[in-house]
């Protein structure tokens, strides 16, 4: 905790802005040089479209893309054919909302809008019942209702609450339901094993785990999408096309229509290399120590209250808080003047803020390049906040 888990000088942004205290990784992480270089090298030496080229460059490009799929699969203990590349976690969840047709839905009030709005919209459009899963004051899910599909987050992007996904997926399976887990705030920050958790679907994004924007991941348990309809139509997702009709490929290719985010997959692959070299358990422990230290530091500052679990073992590296008498935006503006980057607002979780009876929060979130000095800078600035 005294120093970053991955040195700041491995990130060009910190070399260019050495005094930056970046505490907004729950929104998006910074990019290490290894990721930038991997994408640059690919574009400079190997770039070609994948899958249908007989020439060497296309073959190399295809190999790199498919190796990225293997690497993602290994990270979460899945098989490569269970990994679908999308443009974002949001698209992964929208894809599912479109292709899955359950008899009823259950969505938690704590979800990011990307795991809330698609289900709400589809339930209404298809005239199917939807129920909302309440939380306790720390963000732990209350009793699950009976439903055909459950959309739940592994870790809250606002409260940081880490729910017991393994137990929930067991319960969902007992209810004969399908589990859709938004692991966007979980996969980048610790070991996440889809087989151990027992979920049917898991979505996460690259840009929150040191990788580039423009690529998301959807884990779909083998065979579960065999009879589901495609999402987008076009090249690379077909077996054959004729005027009589079209036969579609199997997953994952059925859900990767058109030219995919090739360079982004290669960037993600480089990010995973660095994360695995660092160690997912080490990352979790580092963030837990930072979170504990941040909670202790903030607790002592007058007029500040924070939300979510008080036990750092049950909390991801996210602290949302409010300063009495100050709008969260203003807190963020003032911190920005001290080169401290935090986020403010509802963090794409309006139902959660309504549930907590607050309009918005300021949020600090931590990652591998943060250390104690970032928290000290935050606490020091928060202690001096006022309009004078």
């Amino acid at each position, binding site marked *: 905790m005294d120093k970053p888990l991955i040195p700041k000088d491995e990130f060009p942004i910190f070399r260019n802005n050495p005094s930056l205290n970046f505490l907004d990784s729950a929104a998006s992480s910074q990019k290490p040089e290894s990721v930038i270089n991997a994408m640059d090298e690919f574009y400079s030496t190997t770039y070609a479209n994948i899958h249908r080229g007989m020439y060497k460059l296309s073959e190399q490009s295809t190999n790199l893309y498919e190796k990225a799929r293997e690497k993602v699969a290994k990270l979460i203990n899945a098989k490569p054919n269970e990994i679908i590349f999308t443009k974002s976690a949001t698209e992964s969840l929208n894809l599912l909302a479109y292709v899955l047709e359950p008899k009823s839905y259950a969505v938690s009030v704590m979800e990011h809008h990307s795991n809330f709005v698609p289900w709400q919209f589809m339930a209404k459009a298809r005239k199917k019942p939807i129920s909302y899963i309440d939380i306790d004051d720390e963000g732990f899910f209350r009793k699950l209702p009976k439903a055909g599909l459950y959309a739940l987050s592994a870790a809250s992007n606002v409260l940081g609450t880490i729910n017991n996904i393994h137990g929930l997926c067991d319960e969902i399976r007992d209810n004969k339901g399908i589990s859709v887990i938004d692991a966007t705030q979980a996969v980048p920050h610790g070991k996440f094993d889809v087989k151990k958790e027992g979920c049917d679907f898991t979505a996460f994004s690259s840009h929150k785990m040191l990788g580039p924007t423009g690529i998301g991941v959807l884990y779909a348990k083998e065979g579960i999408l065999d009879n589901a309809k495609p999402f987008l139509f076009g090249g690379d997702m077909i077996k054959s096309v004729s005027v009589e009709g079209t036969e579609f490929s199997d997953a994952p290719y059925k859900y990767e229509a058109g030219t995919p985010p090739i360079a982004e997959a290669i960037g993600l692959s480089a990010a995973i290399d660095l994360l695995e070299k660092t160690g997912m358990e080490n990352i979790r422990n580092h963030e837990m120590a930072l979170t504990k230290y941040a909670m202790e530091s903030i607790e002592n500052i007058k007029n500040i209250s924070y939300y979510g679990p008080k036990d750092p073992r049950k909390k991801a590296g996210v602290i949302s808080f409010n300063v009495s008498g100050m*709008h969260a*935006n*203003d807190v963020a*503006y*003032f911190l920005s003047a001290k080169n401290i980057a935090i986020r403010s607002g509802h963090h794409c979780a309006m139902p959660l803020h309504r549930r907590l009876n607050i*309009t918005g929060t300021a949020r600090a979130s931590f990652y591998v390049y943060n250390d104690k000095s970032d928290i000290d800078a935050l606490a020091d600035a928060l202690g001096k906040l006022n*309009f004078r």
Partner: protein
Amino acid sequence: MADTDIYDKYVDIFNQKKHFRKLEGSDVISADSYVSCADNIRVYIRVKDGMIEDASFDKVSCFVGVVVSEMLAKDIIGKPLSYLNSIDIQHVNRLMGVDVTQNFQMKGCAELPISAFKEIAKKVKK
């Protein structure tokens, strides 16, 4: 002007705001929200003989939203109702002496009271 300079320049207006209140007996109320920062502003006006006799605002907003609401409320009092049609972001820039459009978030916060006051004008016409 840096973002924080706006705070320095308008801190007195923020702290001594005179129009942050519910306007009893108001003719028209309009509310609008800015989804990006969860702001929600409600504005009130009282009209007599086509002139804006009083104006105010309440609910939740950040510093920029409050300052712009306060300045607009003060600005429109004593003006004909049709004056509301002329207020826009450039008008706010002139009032403040700052180009708030330079900061995307601040622009959104400043546009919130503009849109709420303009909505009032539409309601009155109906």
